[in-house]
């Protein structure tokens, strides 16, 4: 069956370090992968989209990679700040016309 896994439920990191979050998938061949940020009590907010033919995408301090051979996406936040503390969700296109499928998310805490 199709499966999306995001590494550890929670990740703690020191301010100023690079946070790396992982999204692995099985039995999928997504054409696109997206990352969202969700703050407590709020709806997810779109951050980045990467296509299967793109190896890497950047936006300010964010970097996303997409390795279709490893079936994995990595989401990096460089020079992390306490304000980056949130839950980060990856989402994949499904086959056909079905909507995005979301991972369970990773809760990131950046400690000052």
């Amino acid at each position: 069956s199709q499966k999306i896994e995001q590494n550890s439920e929670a990740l703690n990191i020191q301010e100023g370090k690079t946070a790396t979050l992982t999204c692995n998938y099985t039995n999928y061949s997504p054409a696109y992968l997206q990352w969202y940020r969700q703050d407590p009590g709020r709806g997810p907010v779109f951050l980045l989209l990467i296509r299967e033919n793109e190896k890497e995408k950047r936006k300010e301090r964010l970097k996303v990679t997409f390795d279709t051979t490893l079936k994995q996406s990595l989401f990096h936040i460089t020079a992390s700040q306490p304000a980056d503390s949130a839950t980060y969700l990856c989402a994949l296109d499904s086959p056909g016309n079905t909507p995005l499928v979301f991972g369970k998310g990773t809760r990131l805490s950046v400690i000052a």
Partner: protein
Amino acid sequence: NAGVTQTPKFRILKIGQSMTLQCAQDMNHNYMYWYRQDPGMGLKLIYYSVGAGITDKGEVPNGYNVSRSTTEDFPLRLELAAPSQTSVYFCASSYSNRGDYNEQFFGPGTRLTVL
């Protein structure tokens, strides 16, 4: 633009009661979605719509109904509330369901408790 709006923000229901969760978007998006989010369980798709008059089931549709009479509105109906429906409900919309324009815009959520 208000984006995606949801009402109510909070609601407590008794077992067996019914209610409708309202969702509206002002971005002229064809695609709209309803999710539920339980602690630690991620987003589960309940129903979605690809345009006015067209709806389809998601992963967890049992106990819910939807309708889409206009592009803007996508209400979710709970007919006989059960404790298992205690959750946070999010409505979302997107311009497309494929490719570069299928990023989803989420509403602020409705926190529902069934006692």
